[in-house]
């Protein structure tokens, strides 16, 4: 079984985001970038499938600037076998990404594509579902448990009311939630080995996908700031403030 894992390079989740003064976007200059945390979980799941003998090959894909190579090297160091880099400067909307991934799926014919459920930069939560729609494949989103058997996958999904179990026909798309697994740190020998693994390069034009944006970003602003409050000295003072001052209890 072949597994495809798309990975996105995003601002590291620990970095405090700063909006640019001209409101054109978020300042990405000299900011630490990392693999989207949900995508790390996806890579981990794929590598575990390979270690369990279920998967034969794990292919990582990333779309974006030259530096996305670093993100792919991380995936390779975690255990992916090879990588594909679609080189593109500038923003890519989820629909374009899904279209390019659909082309790569046609070329690589994986049995399953495992993605993060959302990227922590645009918080769109769309790419996996869009890819499933374009391919006409089954989709299991927000997955906290994945079981593969002959010709099918069983997924446990984290939904608003609890958990849901859905059986998927293969090939299938799975988008992963936080509690599927805990991703490993790549070991130094594996980081060294990853340097020798192949990263094939492509362009959006190679894949025949138009990258004209559908959304115009008019402006990006800071959210309204919350006024800092006060510290109270005791539980009774807290209750007094909530009951008599704020009137919320």
């Amino acid at each position, binding site marked *: 079984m072949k597994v495809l894992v798309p990975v996105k390079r995003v601002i590291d989740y620990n970095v405090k985001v700063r909006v640019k003064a001209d409101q054109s976007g978020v300042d990405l200059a000299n900011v630490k970038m990392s693999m989207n945390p949900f995508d790390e979980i996806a890579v981990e799941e794929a590598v575990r499938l390979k270690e369990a003998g279920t998967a034969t090959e794990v292919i990582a894909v990333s779309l974006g600037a030259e530096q996305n190579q670093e993100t792919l090297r991380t995936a390779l160091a975690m255990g992916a076998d090879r990588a594909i880099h679609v080189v593109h400067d500038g923003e890519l909307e989820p629909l374009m990404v899904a279209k390019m991934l659909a082309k790569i799926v046609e070329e690589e014919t994986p049995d399953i594509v495992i993605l993060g459920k959302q990227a922590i930069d645009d918080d769109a939560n769309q790419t*996996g579902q869009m890819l*499933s729609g374009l391919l006409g494949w089954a989709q299991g989103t927000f997955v906290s448990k994945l079981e593969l058997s002959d010709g099918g996958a069983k997924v446990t999904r984290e939904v608003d009311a609890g958990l849901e179990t859905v059986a998927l026909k293969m090939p299938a798309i799975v988008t992963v939630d936080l509690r599927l697994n805990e991703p490993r740190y790549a070991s130094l020998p594996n980081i060294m080995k990853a340097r020798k693994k192949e990263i094939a390069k492509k362009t959006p034009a190679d894949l025949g996908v138009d990258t004209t944006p*559908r959304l115009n970003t008019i402006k990006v602003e800071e959210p309204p700031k919350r006024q800092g409050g006060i510290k109270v000295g005791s539980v009774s003072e807290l209750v007094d403030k909530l009951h008599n001052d704020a009137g919320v209890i």
Partner: protein
Amino acid sequence: MAILVYAEHDNQELQSATLNAVTAANQMGGDVTILVAGSGCGSVADAAAKVAGVSRVLVADDAALGAQLAENVAPLIAGMASNYSHVVAAATTTGKNVMPRAAALLDTQQVSEITEVVSADTFVRPIYAGNAMATVQSTDAVKLVTVRSTSFDPAVEEGGSASVEAVSGAADSGLSTFEGAALSDNERPELTTARVVISGGRGMQSGDNFAMLEEVADILGAAVGASRAAVDAGYVPNDYQVGQTGKVVAPELYMAIGISGAIQHLAGMKDSKVIACINKDEEAPIFQVADFGLVADLFQAVPELKGELEGQGIQAR
């Protein structure tokens, strides 16, 4: 213009998130039609027809739609979308699952989880866990939009008299099968609509200790939530999680107990009207957003809080 709102429901009841989506749709301007896709969902359609500001209800009642699997629902939405300027759904796990698939079928770039309608084609949405707000304009012919419920008042549930029409065209794709659900058996108010929310974090130290919060919640008529850390540690189920990737809440009062206040947690609760916190670490970032902060050991403070509320006869409103 006509706007299609995808109803959030469980085949029995219309969920309140639909009412917030109707308000957002009305702000976009145009006749609002609600699509109820389900199985044996007649009572949902009746409830939808009574919602103020809705002119038409379309019911797709078919066994294939019972579990609202995206593979079966998305083609239905895509098939009717050309009659509308917008398709709107609540940004619930159902809306998030179904809408992008429909958007791909329509070759449309969805706008996710909007918090404000600027005009018929321009919307505000949070990015980077709400640390930035983007105003985006859609150039697609049919706009697909999901709505953050806490940012829009609910439409009035009564007073409308929309027509109810059956629609056909539903089919089972055969791609996926719903096998079952393990839903939280929770008597308390729902997290996303509760007037008061009391949440516990890693500081709670165990699932059993959440009983303390539940006792306070019962007095205040509050919902109980949790930080990601508490859910990851297995103290409480996933549906308790408040945050960037869990539920977004905006109650009158949010009480954070033993929660440090990681960025991704703040993203899910910082629009609450009043925030109170109890944490023994006075450097915890939660104090920077709390209106009222108490530096204390929660294992002493929470039972004391319960006693104080009982002593003063404070009850749920």
